[in-house]
């Protein structure tokens, strides 16, 4: 096979996955309290359905989807709603959230099947079941899964791209899922193929996970057209556009979606979750989180209820090291640092990374010397150098002319910048400023 096994540009951060790559997925004990923000996904926040004092069972819907691109929120543990109000959110601010005091003595078992069995359902029915179960992408952005399963009529989808790259350093939850739940992944693939009405799936896995490639190859069902491809290790290999370029050699048009080139991309964790929802009959109320980093005593991959607070998660992982200095939700490249240990794990929280003072030592920022490394790093071929100097002068509209909107905030430019200029942060700020500005 003469396929280029990677995309152009990108960066090579050390992957640091050895901390947890060998830790099997284990369940942590239920916490005393779960906090469920109503905004856990891309799109409109869920509409609140409960009031303080209400008794909820595990799997009860407490927030309803507010539109097509939205997703419901379910109680992840049986208990009583203590209060509803602003709560620290991984995005940095406070968001309305439902606090549930977990009932110590509840069975925490499903009363009845909340999600129907998928076999025998029409594709349309599967999609609405997926939405009702609150399934979203688990890779980070938490894009509602049912949207991906119902492409617009003008797009002809021919391939499902299964994203097993997990290119962010440190994180290993997808890796473990592929090792431990390969069959479940393929069940999910089967469901997705059914919904999309297509036959073909391509699995892309970075080569730093040879065991996962091996397992996935072996587990691939013979009746489906499935290809498992080992890819070069490079960040951001797992970005949709990069992955489609590598696996299908198609370039998603600027401003377009994978659907424009006939592909749907979903990461293995989300696909496994899709299958799990139908298997267990429970909506998305728990997920696998990698807790890792030099600042935590016992790193591992844990299954926890959505809404588990950071402090409980850390405690389950043996507590913080003495020189732990920063906690990040997500991977080190795109994840956001959180200030409060009360921040809850969301549906989209793929990992919690605890860095120690060694990694977070403040580095001086220097003037840009136009070395061009950001251009060499940018996977979408922007000119971050120019964008950065425009951002400094706040010429946002001129930044648009330089294709700011194609930036996916992958952080490669900041990573590569020898002058330590927070480029992707500047771009995020500029994008936010432009979004706030009334459309001109």
């Amino acid at each position, binding site marked *: 096979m003469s396929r280029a096994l990677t995309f152009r540009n990108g960066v090579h951060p050390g992957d640091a996955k050895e901390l947890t790559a060998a830790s099997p997925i284990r369940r942590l004990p239920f916490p005393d309290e779960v906090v469920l923000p109503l905004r856990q996904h891309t799109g409109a926040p869920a509409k609140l359905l409960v009031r303080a004092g209400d008794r909820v069972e595990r799997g009860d819907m407490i927030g309803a989807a507010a539109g097509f691109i939205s997703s419901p929120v379910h109680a992840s543990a049986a208990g009583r709603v203590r209060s509803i109000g602003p709560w620290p959110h991984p995005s940095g601010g406070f968001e309305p959230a439902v606090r549930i005091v977990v009932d110590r003595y509840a069975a925490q078992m499903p009363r009845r099947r909340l999600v129907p069995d998928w076999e025998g359902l029409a594709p349309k029915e599967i999609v609405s079941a997926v939405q009702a179960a609150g399934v979203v992408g688990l890779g980070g952005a938490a894009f509602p899964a049912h949207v991906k399963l119902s492409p617009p009529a003008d797009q002809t989808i021919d391939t499902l791209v299964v994203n097993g790259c997990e290119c962010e350093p440190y994180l290993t939850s997808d890796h473990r899922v592929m090792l431990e739940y390969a069959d479940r992944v393929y069940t999910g693939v089967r469901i997705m193929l059914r919904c999309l009405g297509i036959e073909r799936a391509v699995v892309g896995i970075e080569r730093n996970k040879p065991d996962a490639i091996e397992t996935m190859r072996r587990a691939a069902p013979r009746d489906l057209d499935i290809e498992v491809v080992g890819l070069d290790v490079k960040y951001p290999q797992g970005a949709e556009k990069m992955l489609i370029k590598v696996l299908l050699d198609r370039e998603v048009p600027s401003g377009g979606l994978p659907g424009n080139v006939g592909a749907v991309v979903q990461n293995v964790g989300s696909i496994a979750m899709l299958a799990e929802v139908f298997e267990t009959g429970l909506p998305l109320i728990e997920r696998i989180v990698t807790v890792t980093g030099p600042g935590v005593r016992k790193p591992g991959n844990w299954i926890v209820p959505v809404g588990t607070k950071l402090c409980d998660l850390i405690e389950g992982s043996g507590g913080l090291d003495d020189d732990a200095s920063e906690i990040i939700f997500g991977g080190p490249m795109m994840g956001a640092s959180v200030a*409060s240990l009360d921040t809850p794990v969301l549906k989209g929280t793929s990992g919690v990374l605890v860095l120690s003072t060694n990694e977070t030592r403040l580095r001086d920022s220097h*003037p840009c010397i136009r070395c*061009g490394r950001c251009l060499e790093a940018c996977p979408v071929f922007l000119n971050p150098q120019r964008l950065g100097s425009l951002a400094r002068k706040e010429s946002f509209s001129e930044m648009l002319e330089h294709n700011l909107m194609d930036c996916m905030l992958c952080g490669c430019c900041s990573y590569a910048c020898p002058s330590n200029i927070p480029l992707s942060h500047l771009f995020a700020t500029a994008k936010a400023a432009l979004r706030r500005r009334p459309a001109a």
Partner: protein
Amino acid sequence: MSEPALGVSASPHVKGGDSTPTIMWSVVASLVPVVASAIYFFGPSAALLLAASCAGALATEMCFGQRGTRRLCDGSAAITGLLLGLTLPPGLPLWMAFLGGAFGIGFGKLVYGGLGQNVFNPALLGRAFLQAAFPVAITTWPVRAESWWSLRGDNFALPLMSPATQDAFSGATPLGLMKFEQTATSSWDLVLGTTAGSLGETSGLVILVCGLYLAVRRHLEWRIPASIFCTVALLAGGLHLLDAARYPGPVFTLFSGGLMLGAVYMATDMVTSPVTHRGCWIFGAGIGLLVIVIRLWGGLSEGVMYAILLMNALVPFINRATQPRVFGAIEAEGGS
């Protein structure tokens, strides 16, 4: 569990290895062998001149730099001073070297707002100023000195005063010999550096090795020197084939004058070279072309400095023209 003090910072939370001061100081470090060979060839004069030009550069940066002395730590002023010193003839009065360093930093860098904002290479701008201001002193090349310890000219001329011993010492560079007397210099002398010339331009081989080291460490954009060497070698080779008597061959062209120093250390100055790979190739080709034009058809025997300065002026234009095609942009729409 006690609440630890948690920091919050913007993503990404990991960083690549290089930092700007690292790059700068590694360039300075790679200049050490070049400086050493300059001192080996030209004795105490070389050391004095380098010190004077560095002093000029650093003093100006210190007095007028925006954030005072802190900027000195990034090493860029030191590089400017060293590079300027390396382009000067060994017999130049020290005050001129000092003036050149001050001019380069002041008008080549600080008026634009300091490091990273300048358009012209400060060292070369300083050199061009000196060339225009003191055309005689800066084209006076010493002939071989009696002992290593003797000065190679009137380094200690009083400030604002002419050097006393100009004519007695004047020799000629290989390029001058070629241009004005049609006398070739042997390739071995050129490669080893046993010729007359500026402090840093004689030891082509040392510069090439240091440049390779920098390129391997990725502290230097290898495309620019590669492009310059290719262009110069091709053009010189072609012309040499046409008329061997009139046009010198590629080896002579590559190793004579300041081409090595210019291509490896001056043209690759990150601030004043294009940011795109395509731009770097164009930039290098432009320098190569201008070097050949000025050397062969111009009035000066050496044109590397002017070629780089002129291409520096074109860099904003090259950057505009070579904007990468954004991922997913329709081919027909082109770059912008």
